[in-house]
């Protein structure tokens, strides 16, 4: 999923200070999974902001809505019934969702409540780690399912650097050496000869190296 973390309260308070009523919009997908912007987090943040502004003597009215997703226009359209009653929108979705709301309701100030981080997976409850950087040309079939782009600090494509020590990375000792993981996996699969196949120098254009990307499905786009 796309992972995110709630912005510091101080930043959020400064952000909504000028307004008397806001819409706090959550998202039921990725930010729910990483506990940053789902229905529960909307509830807690709304309560926190209300109490803070009550204390300041300037009550803030907050409408709480959690959409199924904020990255699809059909879901964002559902905000039409609430949007006129508020002065601004604070979105707890990832950057994609915030932009979708801003695009649809272009005369309403929209603010992000979370910092979008990375595409990752759950290691265990409460811990999420980066797994994919959307390089656009997936080599996971060659590396036993471990990504050398997202999981190697140096994004090396043909084996570890000299700093790989006891399976850990020299850049960050908390990070597993991706190539150690790849070797272990290939060994477990009985595919160690694949280790010696060279992966050619990567073309980074599909990975965002040549500007914002787009996918068009001719069979679906009418």
């Amino acid at each position, binding site marked *: 999923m796309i992972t995110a973390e709630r912005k510091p309260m101080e930043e959020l*308070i400064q952000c909504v200070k000028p307004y008397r009523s806001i819409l706090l919009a959550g998202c039921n997908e990725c930010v729910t999974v990483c506990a940053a912007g789902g229905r529960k987090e909307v509830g807690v943040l709304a309560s*926190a902001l209300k109490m*803070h502004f*009550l204390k*300041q003597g300037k009550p803030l009215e907050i409408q709480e809505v959690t959409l199924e997703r904020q990255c699809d226009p059909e879901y964002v359209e559902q905000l039409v019934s609430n949007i006129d009653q508020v002065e601004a929108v604070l979105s707890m979705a990832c950057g994609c969702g915030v932009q979708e709301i801003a695009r649809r309701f272009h005369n309403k100030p929209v603010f992000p409540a979370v910092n979008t981080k990375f595409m990752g997976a759950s290691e265990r409850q409460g811990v999420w780690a980066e797994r994919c950087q959307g390089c656009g040309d997936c080599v996971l079939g060659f590396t036993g399912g471990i990504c050398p782009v997202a999981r190697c600090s140096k994004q090396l494509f043909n084996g570890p650097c000299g700093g790989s020590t006891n399976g850990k990375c020299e850049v960050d000792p908390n990070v597993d050496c991706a190539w150690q993981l790849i070797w272990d996996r290939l060994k477990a699969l009985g595919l160690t000869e694949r280790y010696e196949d060279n992966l050619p120098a990567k073309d980074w254009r599909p990975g965002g190296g040549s500007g914002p990307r787009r996918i068009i499905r001719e069979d679906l786009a009418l």
Partner: protein
Amino acid sequence: MENFEPMIVAFCCHYCAYTAADMAGSMRLRYPPNVKIIRVPCLGKVDAIHIMKSLEKGADGVYVAGCLEGDCHFKNGNVRAAHRVDYLKKLLDEIGIGGERVEMFAMSAGMGERFAQTATDFTEKIRKLGPNPAKVARHEDQRAAG
């Protein structure tokens, strides 16, 4: 504010803290009537929103009381609650309400005296801290409007 009577909400787990409260009752121990007990099957049931809403709706202090370390009937509900309380303390400090208004206590089912003492001590602590700042402002708002 003179004569401030704190409103305290206590989430108590059925297996330990609530039974301790029951024990306090059987032993005819006194504790302040300010403490409103809410029985939950396990402290793991208590989520951040329950504590936040309690404060938002006018509680001056909230505590969660559960089993001693290692004794949770549902394995680690008390540990989950402890982590949640720590998170909320930080959040409440950041918004100016004060993390001291939320606390977690551990006790066993037989600790009637501990229950009564905890209730008394926490009520006193909140009495000294004063009313929930969000509540005061809301009342002043209503007085000004009315």
